[in-house]
């Protein structure tokens, strides 16, 4: 049933769409993934990332477009004929089978000889470090161990593509960090494509070679983690990546991609991430990069502190500019609500976008 796809070069999604009733869950998705890449599909819930993954896996049929593994069209195949590996959010282990049987299931379905199954299952168990749990049932394992079994089940068939659907969201914070390293290591060892769906930007930043940001079923940006963290291409992507401050200002000066905004009399410079079309633009900035400074420094905003919180290393707070815009900032010392504060933006981190329609 399954041929050897290990020599494939790329996976291509061409104009893939999916409609649920009147809802367009996925709109004309185009994406090409090269062998060896680790790609994260990132976006808030309902953005279409899981729909895309299920279409690739064959668990959902596509409404339009096509999916290709090199020159073989795969969106017309049943899920069981595609030969991919998949790791599910809630593990989805077979509860009545031992760890060994779970991992060997895919090989058994492919009619691999018993001796070979035993050998490859042993290898997979070693890869996920679960040799000692081989004969237990999934219900006897901890969450992290179950997730490792699910990963072993996916990689033992040496699939051209490993699909992961928020595999870490059911684990606690500490285990999540450990498993992230494990997943990276396993991906490097396999040399195949991993497509990883998540709503957690930290996870996407730390794991992926390339991140695809989705929203409302459309691709908003594709780029490396550094691209997305430092240079989001759209205002909504910036928002999602933690640029919590959005300050409107009048465009005062523009040269190349450097734009100076006049925000209530204060001139701030930043990098335009798109061609600024209107007279008013938006300055987008992380709270970390808007710092409380001593009074009367040039280029600092005046604001009134609304709330302040101790977060250990620093204080974080919210304040209102004279035009009532709420801003979020960082401070090295405690401030009190109601107090005036001067906030300085780090111009190398400040991005300028057009206002949203």
């Amino acid at each position, binding site marked *: 049933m399954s041929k050897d796809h290990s020599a494939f070069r790329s996976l291509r999604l061409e104009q893939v769409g999916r409609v649920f009733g009147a809802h367009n869950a996925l709109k004309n998705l185009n994406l090409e993934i090269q062998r060896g890449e680790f790609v994260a599909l990132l976006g808030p819930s309902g953005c279409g990332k899981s729909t895309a993954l299920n279409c690739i896996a064959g668990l959902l049929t596509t409404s339009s477009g096509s999916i290709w593994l090199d020159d073989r069209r795969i969106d017309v195949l049943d899920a*069981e004929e595609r030969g991919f590996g998949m790791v599910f959010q*809630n593990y989805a282990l*077979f509860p*009545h089978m031992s760890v060994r049987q779970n991992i060997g299931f895919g090989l058994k379905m492919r009619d691999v000889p018993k001796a070979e199954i035993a050998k490859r299952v042993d290898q997979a168990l070693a890869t996920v470090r679960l040799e000692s749990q081989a004969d237990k049932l999934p*219900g006897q*394992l901890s969450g992290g161990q*179950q997730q490792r079994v699910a990963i072993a089940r996916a990689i033992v*068939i040496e699939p051209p593509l490993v699909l992961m659907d928020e595999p870490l969201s*059911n684990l606690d914070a500490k285990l999540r960090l450990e498993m992230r390293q494990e997943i990276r290591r396993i991906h490097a060892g396999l040399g195949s494509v991993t497509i990883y769906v998540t709503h957690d930007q930290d996870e996407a930043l730390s794991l992926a070679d390339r991140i695809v940001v989705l929203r409302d079923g459309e691709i908003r940006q594709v780029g490396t983690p550094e691209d997305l963290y430092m240079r989001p291409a759209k205002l909504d992507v910036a928002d999602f990546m933690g640029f919590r401050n959005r300050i409107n200002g009048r465009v005062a000066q523009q040269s190349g991609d450097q734009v100076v905004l006049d925000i209530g009399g204060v001139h701030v410079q930043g990098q335009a991430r798109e061609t600024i079309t209107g007279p008013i633009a938006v300055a987008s900035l992380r709270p970390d990069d808007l710092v409380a400074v001593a009074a009367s420094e040039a280029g600092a905003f005046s604001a009134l502190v609304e709330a302040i919180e101790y977060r250990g290393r620093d204080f974080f707070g919210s304040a209102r500019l004279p035009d009532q815009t709420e801003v979020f900032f960082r401070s090295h010392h405690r401030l009190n609500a109601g107090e005036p504060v001067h906030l300085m933006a780090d111009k190398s981190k400040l991005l300028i976008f057009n206002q949203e329609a």
Partner: protein
Amino acid sequence: MNQLHILGRRLWIFSVWSLVTFFIVNLLAMIATVITSSTATRWLRSWLPDAYTFKWYLSAWSEFQLDDVLVTTFQVVFAVVALSGLFGVPAAYAMARRDFPGKNIAMLLFLLPMLVPPVTFGIPLATVLYQTGLGGTMAGVILANLVPTVPFVILVMIPFIEQIDPKIESAARVFGASTFQLFWRILLPLLLPGMLAALLLVLVRTIAMFELTFLTSGPTSQTLVVALYYAVFAAGVRAVQSIDAMAVIYMAITVIWLIIALRFVNPAQIVTRAKQQPSAH
């Protein structure tokens, strides 16, 4: 703390519990009484008889022609169990996994034959069966019994099916299982406890289903429970102990099957639904 409050609460809890306990003790005592009676030689002067005997069992056996009746009973019961499983389980799967308009109405229609007293539809059913020539035959008795048992299987199986995470089926597909392999290697093993429980309960219900069998059976399709009722109704001509003996046989058969059924399923599950998630965290 307010001592009176607590006293009142405790008294109320105590009285409810003692009533419930009294209840259960009585139930057990009554069953003991019949067993005693059915094995007694005479029984007039005291609570316990003077001597024990099994002759009432022998007389009950021959008087009621129990070998014929038992064979009929088992033929009817096993046909009903097999057919309810065959139709009920796939229908339950469809009900559990698919949303379609009118699903709630369909659920309600399935509940109806379980909630409505069998005599309500038993009489028209019998009328129709006699008109089609099936009345009084074994086929007619089996058909009549399927009316409440198929919905019963559907309703009992739905929670068991819903307990199976659909992602597990997705996983089996992704890893290469065909429809047949999915059914054989994943669904069947996971549903087996539920199916055994449902079908054993159908078995007990069918053994006990007096109304429908009574209304549709002829002389060759009498089951044990119908024979027992005829005996009680015509009690004048037979010894009380003989009837008691037959009741014990009947009780023993149903209770044995029930115990087997309960080994496969925590009965509270059917009513209160399994709380545990399909996978442990």
